[in-house]
């Protein structure tokens, strides 16, 4: 398997606190990796590290063939990150925000409108300032920008949160078609049900490192739904 993302014993600090504590991870092209783990385990930090936004203190890491330790800046514009934060400017409209992202990434700005309408932001919503939007609508703006950019590697942090069920389904099928076209997806999610987006692999993070990795055929038996129920069974 060709490796697209490769983390070896990666340690990342925030101030003096170790967020990632020796994380090992590999992923190849065309995978849909579902990252799970308790709150505060380090999932968001992992995605940010893959995007080149966190400095790697120890260990080695490369993404899309770029060495993250030496030149993290070279990887950033090639990944698409959708996090808890949407990176939007409140005082700009949906269209202006998407336009800005496309211009900044040197992508085709012509796609802005069609991408916005594909997520359901049509008519007045296109020219509404983000500050007036509902939580789901904001997320959609960020999503539209991402869809228009077509990154090679998608890093999605709870992408379904705040989206209505129609948009969830749309996102799932959009991602599926991107993966079919050769893209790779790493997504974090706490939800047990993921519609049509079926992960090829489930990775579990705990205490800043990978503590479980189930892929391929083994996945059928240990699907997230089942582990969830097992877990809740324990608690009750």
């Amino acid at each position: 398997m060709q490796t697209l993302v490769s983390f070896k014993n990666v340690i990342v600090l925030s101030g003096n606190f170790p967020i990632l504590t020796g994380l090992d991870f590999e992923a190849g092209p065309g995978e849909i990796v579902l990252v799970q783990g308790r709150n505060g385990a380090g999932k968001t930090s992992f995605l940010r590290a893959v995007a080149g936004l966190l400095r790697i203190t120890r260990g080695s890491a490369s993404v899309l063939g770029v060495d993250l330790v030496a030149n993290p800046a070279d990887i950033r514009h090639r990944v698409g990150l959708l996090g808890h934060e949407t990176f939007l400017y409140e005082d700009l409209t949906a269209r202006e925000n998407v336009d800005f992202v496309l211009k900044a990434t040197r992508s085709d700005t012509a796609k802005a409108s069609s991408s916005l309408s594909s997520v359901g932001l049509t008519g007045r919503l296109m020219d509404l300032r983000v500050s007036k939007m509902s939580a789901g609508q904001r997320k959609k703006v960020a999503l539209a920008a991402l869809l228009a950019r077509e990154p090679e590697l998608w890093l999605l942090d709870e992408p379904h949160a705040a989206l209505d069920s129609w948009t969830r389904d749309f996102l799932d099928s959009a991602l599926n078609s991107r993966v079919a076209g050769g893209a790779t997806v790493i997504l974090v999610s706490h939800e047990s049900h993921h519609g049509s987006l079926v992960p090829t692999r489930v990775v579990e993070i705990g205490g800043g490192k990978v503590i479980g990795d189930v892929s391929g055929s083994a996945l059928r038996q240990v699907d997230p739904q089942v582990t969830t129920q097992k877990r809740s069974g324990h608690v009750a």
Partner: protein
Amino acid sequence: MESRGYRWSRRAIGIVSLLLVAATVILGLWITPPDVVQGQLVRLIYVHPPVAWVAYLAYGVTSIGSILYLWKRTRNLKWDLLAAASAEVGVVFTGLTLITGSIWGRPAWGVWWTWDARLTTTALLFVLYLGYLALRRVPADSHQRAVRSSIAGLIAFIDVPIVHQSVVWWRTLHQGATVLNPSLSPKIHGEMAMTLLLGFISFTSVYAWMLMHRYQIAILEQKVLDAELDQLIEERRREPDSESRQARPTNDVGNFDQPSKV
């Protein structure tokens, strides 16, 4: 931890500094003659300018350390620690400059302080490096701190030439360039010049000694931090839910009320 050679040279420099300062005091107070105009006051000249120049020197070292850190090929945390140590000593010497200047100013000008250009810019120099030290105290990981403070240190250095040139640019009350003038020909002579030179050497030696001391402490602090970090990493790796759920014994699962250490 501290290499033997380092320790010995530090001690040697300490002793030499002591001797040099003693010699300067003796020469300055008893051997050299009083000035025609200023009388006994002139003796401050063996302290005040050297102290100011050593402050420049200290900030120069800070800048070099900063550049060496910022330049990727020579990047090493040691340069940053050196820069910081030197800046701290530099702040002390700037403080001494201000104090000796004030003491001199009281009889010479009749005031402790006046809004003269040299004085104002020297005060700014003091504040600039205080800011540098304040920036270092913002919690961040060591690399981040090093980058930020290196940049601040470099920018702050711009004020040094301004302080030096201030007597030329503004019409000031303060003494013009007597020794370090553009033509590099000192306007004082004989034993006074010699004593001044000795003063300069002895304060530089004091600076070197303080720097080595401070730097050593910084290195040790960094080692402690690194050791703490290893422990923190171990702790985080052992966080309550950091083992695979499938492998965990049933009675332990999800019970947050239990103490976290197993």
